[in-house]
């Protein structure tokens, strides 16, 4: 009984130490990358082809096209510097629109397109009623492209 308790204490301390260690020394430091930017992806060399990547960017206006036969959705993603083409199969989220942020998971292939089956909508930190938006009012917020380039 006594040694059981000791093991339990050791296990719980080890768990907490692992959690805190992960915070400080693990993936959580400077090299933490939740997504790549279109600039980084377009600089990928051959050895990255076929690997799964997560890319965030702005959906380029007038780039969104639905293939009438395959129902594939094609669009372009930009970070203001580079533009990459994306082919998507599936149902995109409601908030996925041209001129809005999106995080796209997919495979970067030899045809230098991102082939994706998963899109997440990335929205900005401003909240306002529709008529305020119609009047063209803006609230202070971070430049979208800047939110992509943080490390």
């Amino acid at each position, binding site marked *: 009984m006594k040694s059981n308790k000791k093991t339990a204490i050791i296990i719980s301390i080890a768990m*907490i130490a692992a959690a805190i260690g992960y915070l400080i020394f693990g993936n959580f430091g400077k090299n933490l990358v939740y997504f790549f930017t279109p600039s980084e992806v377009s600089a990928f060399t051959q050895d990255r082809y076929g690997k799964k990547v997560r890319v965030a960017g702005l959906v380029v206006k007038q780039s969104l096209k639905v293939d009438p036969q395959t129902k594939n959705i094609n669009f372009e993603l930009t970070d203001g510097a580079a533009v990459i083409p994306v082919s998507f199969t599936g149902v995109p989220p409601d908030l996925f629109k041209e001129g809005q942020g999106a995080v796209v998971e997919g495979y970067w292939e030899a045809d230098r397109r991102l082939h994706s089956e998963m899109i997440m909508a990335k929205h900005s930190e401003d909240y306002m009623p529709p008529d305020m938006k119609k009047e063209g009012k803006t609230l202070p917020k971070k430049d979208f492209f800047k939110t992509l380039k943080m490390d």
Partner: protein
Amino acid sequence: MIASIFIAKLRKYQNGFALLSLLFLSAGLYTGLVVSPPDYYQGEVVRIMYIHVPFAEAAMAAYTVLFAGSLWYLWKREPVIDNMCHAAAGIGILFTSVALITGSIWAKPTWNTWWTWDPRLVSFAILLLILIGYLMLRSFLDDPEKEARYSAVLVIIGFVDLPIVHFSVEWWRTLHQPLSISTRGVSIASSMLYPLSFMSIGLYLLLAYLIMVRTQMLYLEHLLEAKQGRLLSEVHSS
């Protein structure tokens, strides 16, 4: 004796906190869910924000109370302060869980996923793990003094997670949106900001009330245990 004064103060002010909290929360819920407009981009889903954000803020406030209380305990070694820490941790788990669950419910229609391994989400989930670890550690230790001391040290180490949670959206690439209230200014329209503020104030007050009540419960429990122990030893010795 400081403990009895502390407990008397809690008892004196707790109902005031409860009443004010009720007032702010009902005003917040009414204005947030009925009066305030939908968002230009998210639509009606934005109303989840009025629950999610204040719970997340209050969860972090609970950890701040726990942190301050742990420092206080290590300084004064007063058991009633440890009771307050113990109380704050349990309620912190509740608030952290509500923030995670409502965030997930909000994320599905807006982001298109329930969960993603984004720095804000991961660091906040670690907050929950630290709190659960804290209660586990407490339950494994028999000696009340050791229990209080070890767990206080854990809280102080774990405090590093709090600024990480807050600034994760500014420091790293995330799916979660950046801070809406920062040095850049306030990026929430006033028609949405005031229900959010009502809810935040209401939940801070509720947090304080719950910690006050729970601290008294834990204090009485410990008194009772001590008394039981004394009685048992008297019976055995006689």
